[in-house]
Each structure stands twice: as structure tokens, then as C-alpha cells.
């Protein structure tokens, strides 16, 4: 490039900047109550204030009594949640081919869905994303006549879940709890219950530098830190609470060289970390990564009975689904107990259908008794704290806090 060419290029940029300075256009206005409403003015759902998601005239559920389409059914779901047995049994039962596409995290999936670049019939959706998908009309309401297993099998308190009262758009997905996982062989005297605030253990334990990990998920990492700080509302958007959480994680990073990652099951098994923020299912997965000479008994998990961080997701149908009837059949298929059994044995998460209560899962020998603490109990689910959707301002506050954590600023 010649010097003249370079200057011409810079001149073009300067011209554009000058133009930008001369013109204005309205945009980005916020409507409704920014504190209590999310995308599209939809009220922010919480367990103690359920929300009925809006239905739109131009986005209605399919009619009853339609025949299933020929497929293939495109399923967009989290890596490692749906077992191969479930795909195979659906194909065998309905004669419809299933084509799954997997995402690594819901954060990765959402932009693809919103941009319209992901062609799918049915999607495993995180609870926080629901108002965004509804407000943007990228999902359609469900027709309950295709979902007999919902009423017959799903736990009573989820017949009308707080995040989607009357279950207009969703069927329940999976439940798991978030807590503390540790290696007992490296921390033999550690017992979270011995701490006044067990979450504070990360900040209190000595000799764990370089062996500590939190999730590289904004909501999980900051929420546990809020709980450690004594803030029970893990959906708070108060600046003081978020600032304190950032400060606490900065302190933890300084003290322990905290890692942020999503491979808790692997790093715990390999001994890279001795204590981690983890999902109960991670302890189940970790068993498969343990060196052969180490017993799975060394993998421990703790979450409180009352106020545990519980996460769940749900299944939704694309508004542009080419196979909407088959999508309903898929959602109904997942609500069979047999699929719940397949799922918990495959991925360690609970499908909320009758007979899949944690006690039954262990009593029936579906899972080893060692994993009793790693599976969310009905009490933990009933008394747990959940990530709820946030307003745009709330999301911005959380993202800024997370940026501060991730940049160690």
C-alpha cells in the first residue's frame, strides 16, 4: 500500500466520522418498567411471582388432530443431555428420523436462534431465555392435546410452572443443582457443613491455590458469590450487591489463582482442581474421567437442602418448525419415565416426572447411592433459588460485573 493510499483510506474513515457527527436517528428506547419487566414488556418471572407468557394473534399453536410430519425432526439441544437411547426409541416408536444438533451452552445457542441462522424444530431452552424467545416470536405456543404425558406424568407443582404459567410454550426439561464438589483424597478434613456459610469455604480454605475453579458461566459464578456474601436473591440487580460479588471473586482470584471453566467434571477427576463450583451431574460425569487407580468415592458434592441453587431448562418449538406435530411428539416422548431413567443414567440430571424423585432413583437402583447428594431432591427443587430472566438493564449490570471479573479489572 502506498502512503497516499493509506492516507486516502484514513480520509474515508474521517469522512464517515464527520457524517456520523451530523446525523442522528432514534433507537434503543426502553419501554415499560425496566426493573420488573424483560424483553417485550414481559414481566420477570420468579418462583414467588409466576408469569403467564403472552400469546399473540399472529403466533398461534397448531390445531389439534393433525398427523405427524415425515421429518426429519431437527432437535437443538445441549451436548450430553439427551441419550442416544432416547433418540433411537423415538425413531422406532414414530418412524420419524431425528437429526440432533448440539450446543455447548445456551449462551452460544441463543444468538444463532435469534438471528434465524439455526433451522430447528424443537429446542432445549434455558429458563432465562424464555421471555426473549417469546417476545421475538421465534417460538410457538404448544397444543396440550399432543402432550398427554404432561398431565399424566409431570410433578404436580410443574403442571403450571412459575416461568410459564399454564405451560403455554414449554414442557419441562431437566433439573440439576449447583454446589461445591471436591476431592476427598486431597481435602480429607473438608466438610462444607462445618462452615457457618459453606460457600465461604472457597475463601477460607488454605493450601488450595491453583486448585480452585468456578463456572465460566456468568449467572452461576456470580450467583454463588452472592450467596456467599449473604445475598439470597440470586437475580438481584443492585449495584452494591454485584460490586461486592466482583470484589469477592477478585479476592478469590488473587488468593487462589481461580480458574473459570466449564469442564468441572474433567478437572476434578484429573486432580487439576481439588475444590470447584460444580453441578451435581459433574460428579457423575467425573467418574468416567478418573484415573483407574482412584475410587469414585473420593468425588464429593454438597448443596444445601434449603436455598440450593437449582437450574432447569425446558423444551420449546420453533415458530418456523417444519415438523411441529413431530416436535410435540418429541416433547411428550421425553416425559415418559423410561426416558427419564435413560437420561439420568446418561447425564446425571433429573426429568421431573413421577417415579424420578431422587429417593426413587436411588431406591430403584437406577443410580448409585453415592450420588444421592448430587441429584436434586424434590425438597431442594421446591425450596431452591433459581436463575430468573432479567431486564435489559439487569442483564447489562450483570454483564458488566462479569466483565470486571473476567478481566480482573
Amino acid at each position: 500500500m502506498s502512503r497516499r493510499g493509506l492516507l486516502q483510506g484514513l480520509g474515508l474513515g474521517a469522512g464517515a466520522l464527520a457524517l456520523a457527527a451530523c446525523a442522528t436517528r432514534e433507537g434503543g428506547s426502553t419501554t415499560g418498567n425496566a426493573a420488573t419487566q424483560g424483553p417485550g414488556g414481559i414481566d420477570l418471572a420468579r418462583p414467588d411471582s409466576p408469569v403467564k407468557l403472552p400469546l399473540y394473534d399472529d403466533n398461534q399453536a397448531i390445531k389439534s388432530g393433525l398427523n405427524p410430519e415425515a421429518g426429519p425432526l431437527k432437535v437443538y439441544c445441549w451436548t450430553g443431555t439427551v441419550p442416544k437411547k432416547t433418540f433411537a426409541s423415538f425413531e422406532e416408536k414414530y418412524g420419524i428420523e431425528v437429526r440432533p444438533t448440539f450446543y455447548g451452552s445456551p449462551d452460544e445457542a441463543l444468538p444463532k436462534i435469534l438471528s434465524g441462522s439455526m433451522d430447528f424444530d424443537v429446542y432445549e431452552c434455558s429458563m432465562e431465555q424464555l421471555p426473549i424467545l417469546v417476545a421475538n416470536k421465534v417460538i410457538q405456543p404448544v397444543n396440550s392435546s399432543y402432550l398427554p404425558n404432561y398431565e399424566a406424568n409431570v410433578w404436580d407443582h410443574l403442571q403450571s410452572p412459575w416461568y410459564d404459567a399454564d405451560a403455554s410454550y414449554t414442557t419441562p426439561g431437566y433439573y440439576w443443582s449447583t454446589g461445591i464438589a471436591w476431592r476427598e483424597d486431597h481435602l480429607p478434613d473438608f466438610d462444607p457443613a462445618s462452615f457457618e456459610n459453606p460457600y465461604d469455604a472457597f475463601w477460607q480454605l488454605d493450601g488450595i491455590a491453583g486448585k480452585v475453579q468456578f463456572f465460566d458461566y456468568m449467572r452461576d459464578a456470580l450467583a454463588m458469590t452472592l450467596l456467599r456474601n449473604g445475598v439470597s436473591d440470586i437475580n438481584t440487580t443492585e449495584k452494591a450487591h454485584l460490586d461486592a460479588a466482583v470484589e469477592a471473586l477478585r479476592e478469590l482470584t488473587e488468593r487462589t489463582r481461580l480458574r473459570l471453566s466449564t469442564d468441572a467434571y474433567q478437572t476434578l477427576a484429573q486432580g487439576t482442581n481439588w475444590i470447584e463450583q460444580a453441578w451435581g451431574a459433574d460428579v457423575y460425569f467425573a467418574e468416567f474421567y478418573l484415573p483407574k487407580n482412584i475410587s469414585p468415592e473420593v468425588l464429593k458434592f454438597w448443596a444445601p437442602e434449603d436455598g440450593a441453587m437449582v437450574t432447569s431448562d425446558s423444551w420449546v418449538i420453533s415458530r418456523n418448525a417444519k415438523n411441529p406435530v413431530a416436535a410435540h411428539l418429541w416433547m411428550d416422548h421425553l416425559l415418559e419415565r423410561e426416558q427419564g431413567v435413560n437420561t439420568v443414567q446418561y447425564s446425571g440430571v433429573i426429568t421431573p416426572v413421577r417415579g424420578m424423585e431422587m429417593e426413587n432413583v436411588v431406591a430403584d437402583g437406577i443410580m448409585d447411592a453415592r450420588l444421592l447428594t448430587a441429584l436434586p431432591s424434590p425438597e431442594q427443587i421446591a425450596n431452591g433459588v433459581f436463575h430468573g430472566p432479567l431486564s435489559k438493564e439487569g442483564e447489562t449490570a450483570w454483564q458488566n460485573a462479569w466483565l470486571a471479573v473476567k478481566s480482573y479489572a
Partner: protein
Amino acid sequence: MAKRLAGRKILRLSSAPDADAAYPRGFWHALGAPGVAWFALWVLVPAYTIVAVSMGYVSDSMLPVPEWDPRYWNLETLSAVVREMAPGGIFAKVLMNTVTYVLGALVLCVLIGYPVAYYIAKQAGRWKVLLIVLLTIPFWTSYLMRMLAWIGLLSTDGYTNRLLMSIGILDEPYGWLEGHSFVVVISLAYGYLPYFILPLLASLDRIDDRLIDAGKDLGLSSVQTFIRVILPLSKAPLIAASTVAILPMCGDFYTTNLMSGSPATAMIGNQIQVLAQGGPQQNVGASLALLLQLALILLLSYYLYSSSKATKAVAA
């Protein structure tokens, strides 16, 4: 060297002026059109999209609303990001990390890559082809897989610790993956070394051996020949190779994710990943990406300018 050649008539091979006459009119334009279209579609359009998202806003439904019309560009986001890069700002630490790590990795690339490239180009003799093939081995597998392999090597009970303990250098396993900056630097250098060596090798190979022989014939020692002949002739190839290596390093985010994972070693790519993946501040992510692109364009411009200057100097 340029001074010594000054004033001498350079004989150059020139093609016949009507060499293209054998081809139909517009043939070369038609031949290049698919490539240009591909470039426009997959490089220029996405690049402009980043600019448009940066200058736009994010709707209440968390969808980015790009501003395609430059007349309505909103520079507030971009200027806010620039402010946050200043000391004390939220991006200051990651910016410093990025610059430090990239420069550190570049120094390692030069120290390791230059002797290797020079040896293969000038000294390998009949082994040259075999060594070049060996150099391409890292490209047979993806960057990510190579980094994952390193996790196995550097883990607590990995081969590195076992080796160092067996020869008595370490008494107990060292936590290589426990958030150390130097591990990120070494990993970046390892990851991008092939990108550094190959263009360097190609350029060094073109250095005329007679110039090196001439230096020695005129009484220069080996060290003097290196400093006064080889090194000046290596300047442009080094800049080219450095540019090729630096460009991807600056936007890298998975190396530090995999080899450290600590917020203390985050690079600017990690912040872009957080912001651009979704949520209410995708315009901030786009602004960060845009600033990174502008910095790299400046770097590339310097390379093009300096190589053009070097070509003119030789021609003169």
C-alpha cells in the same frame, strides 16, 4: 548493500508487452471475479457488519440493531470502549495482557523460529524437503487439538511433571495449568510458531547466497557476516513472519482459556467472546472487535509500507 548497488544498471527479465493478447478481452477479470466475490461476501460484508453493529444499538429484546448508514452512526459506544482501555478502565488489564503476551510469544518465535528457518533454508542440504514436511506436521491437526494435547502434557500427573521429577529437577508436580502468564506465553508461541517459521523460511530461502559469500570474501567473520549481511536481508522476512503470527495471536481467546482459565491472564479476545456471544451489549463487543481490527490493519499497513519501501530500495 543497496548503496553498493546504487547506480548500477539492473537487467531485468520483462515479459512481452502483448503477452495477454492471446486471451479474450476480460479473461483475467472473469478469472478473478469469483475470488473477489468470495472475498467481498465473506470478508468485507462481515467486517462492515461489525462496524454497523458497533455503531448501532441493542434492542430491548436483546437483538443487535446494526446501523448500516454511516450518516447515523453512533460513536458513543466506540468512544466509551476506548475510554475503558485507559489505565483504570475495565479493558486496561486485558489490553496490557494481550500486548505483553503477544510480544513475549513473538520474542520466543523469533528466538526459536529464526534459527530453525535459517538452518532449513540455507544449511539443511538434502534434508531440506524432509524438514519442511516435518514443519507442516502441526497443520495436520487443528490448533485446538494441539492445545488439548498440551493439557495432557502439562497436567499435574502429565509427562512434563513426570519427566522433571524423574531427573530430579522437581520434587513434586508443578501446577503448570494453574493460571500462570508464562504458560500462556509459551503456549501462544508453540501454537503460532509454524505460522511464523513457514513464511520466514520461504523468504530466507530467496536470499541470494552470493551476497553472503561476497561478505565472507571481503573479510567478514561469520558473526560479522550474520550481523552485516544476513540480518539486514532478514528484516523484511522477519516483519512478514511476525505479522502473520501476530494477527491471529491478538484475537486469540482459547489458548488462555485452556492453558490458564484464570481471569488474571485474560486477553482481549476473551472479553469479545463474552460480549459478542449475546446479551445487551453486543455493540460493545463489536466495538472492541473493531478496535482490534483497526490496530491490526495499522500493523498490516506498516508491513506493506516497509516491504514496499524495501522493494523500491533494492530496485534503485
